[in-house]
């Protein structure tokens, strides 16, 4: 089981990493330079509306079995959203900071490196947290294409044998993993960006909203465990009597 867990994590991280490597620079370029925005955004917008799973057969055909098509699916599912979200975040940067930098003699390339990127970093970080949540959805679909694998394959096969009691823990495991990761990243935000401590009740709100399903699942799990505990303890007591 640990093996499957690791495999699932690997797929989601590789897919997400590739999406970041391509999506963030493109998003920033689109946000800063009109030229790139006009070049890429219509195209990205078009691809965004094609559901990623429709590419699955194609991906399997081209990239064959193994993890590659799965990573590619997570990548495709995430990258287009990422370009748009990052370009929007970039445009939200206070324009007076750019003006100030120019009156201090910054040239366009220096502005991107010294003002735009550090300026949007805290918001970008929150964007990535939200997008990582989405990536988990794509992971589940990705694991169903080609040769099934990872946690989802386990859920699928066990579900077919109606072994639901083995399915629940896995669903909960996925939920808890996502939730714990998000909480950790949220906590790290304060450490990475102390100067943005008062940034974004909005982004915090969005994160709360998006993590809601995970928290519900975690809650249900907790209740079930508690119920199971009390059941077993009461049965124990009965046995002792």
């Amino acid at each position, binding site marked *: 089981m640990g093996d499957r867990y690791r495999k699932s994590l690997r797929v989601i991280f590789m897919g997400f990493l590739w999406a970041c490597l391509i999506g963030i620079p493109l998003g920033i370029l689109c946000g800063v330079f009109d030229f790139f925005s006009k070049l890429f955004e219509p195209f990205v917008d078009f691809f965004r509306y094609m559901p990623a799973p429709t590419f699955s057969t194609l991906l399997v055909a081209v990239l064959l079995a193994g993890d590659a098509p799965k990573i590619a699916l997570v990548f495709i599912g995430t990258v287009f959203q990422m370009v748009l979200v990052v370009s929007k975040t970039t445009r939200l940067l206070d324009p007076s900071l750019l003006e100030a*930098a120019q009156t201090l003699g910054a040239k366009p390339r220096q502005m991107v490196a010294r003002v735009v990127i550090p300026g949007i970093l805290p918001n970008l970080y929150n964007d990535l947290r939200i997008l990582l949540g989405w990536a988990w959805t794509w992971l589940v679909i990705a694991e169903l294409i080609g040769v099934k694998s990872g946690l989802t394959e386990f859920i699928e096969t066990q579900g077919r044998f109606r072994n639901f009691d083995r399915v629940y823990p896995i669903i909960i495991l996925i939920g808890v993993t996502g939730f714990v990761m998000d909480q950790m990243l949220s906590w790290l935000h304060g450490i990475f960006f102390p100067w943005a401590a008062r940034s974004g009740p909005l982004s915090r709100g969005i994160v709360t909203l998006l993590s809601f399903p995970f928290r519900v699942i975690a809650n249900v799990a907790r209740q079930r465990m508690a119920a199971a505990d009390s059941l077993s303890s009461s049965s124990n007591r009965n046995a002792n009597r």
Partner: protein
Amino acid sequence: MNPQLELPGYRDQSPEVAARFSRLRERPVVLEVRGLGKKFETPRGLITALDDVSFSVHKRELMCVIGPSGCGKSTLVRILAGLETPSAGEVLVHGQPVLGPGPDRGMVFQGYTLFPWLSVKENVMFGPRMAGKSAFSAEGEAREWIDLVGLSKFENAYPHQLSGGMKQRVAIARALANQPRVLFMDEPFGALDAQTRCQMQSYLLDIWRNVDITIVFITHDLDEAVFLSDRILVLDANPGRVHELVEVPVPRPRSEAQIFEAPFVATRKHIDRIMHPPGQEQKETPVMRLAVADPDVV
């Protein structure tokens, strides 16, 4: 009339004041503005923000630009800094036309525009670093400028840990670190409370005395303008035009005690008259009310 209010006309200059301004006009021109105009295209038509504005600022002068809200002060200073293109006319700095923002013209904005991710020292180092100086020499320079604005203790603080007045002092240090020929300030103290504001004005005069810098200072506060400047450019609204270039007779060095002396009060009164001409005070108060219904109809 109350005899106590009989003040000398602000132009009743003593010979030494007249000599001071003729000396000022002999200094080299740092900033020359010729026939500047600016029109904005808006959905409701063309707005003329500035119309035929011409003036020149001499070396080491501190000039204030004053005018009612919306007369185009910010637009003017943004054009001077190169952040906006004029529709007509030209701006020359040391004879060179201004074609865009550049490090030879510093700017302090009304809002706080320090880079929040950089410490005070790093903010001040920004300009020299952009100019290609090494981190070491930029740091040394930054320390001196921070010392000049009296914030040495805070050099490692981040902007969100500073008060409004401190932030603007850092902003001044950051602009000065580039050693610009002219420093533009667009209502830099507008967001501060009255007391901090007074302190900041004194600070600015101290800095200006110690540094070889020409300043164009935008404000809508009469006292601030008279207290700080050598000359005051008074703008009309709609469209923004130069009404008068007032020479301030108040001697330097300035101190707060001068606010109650005759030259100060007379100058203040003179500009107040320009900005609020007598006879216009009785305008209807602009309070919105609902239309009164016709009783026959309703």
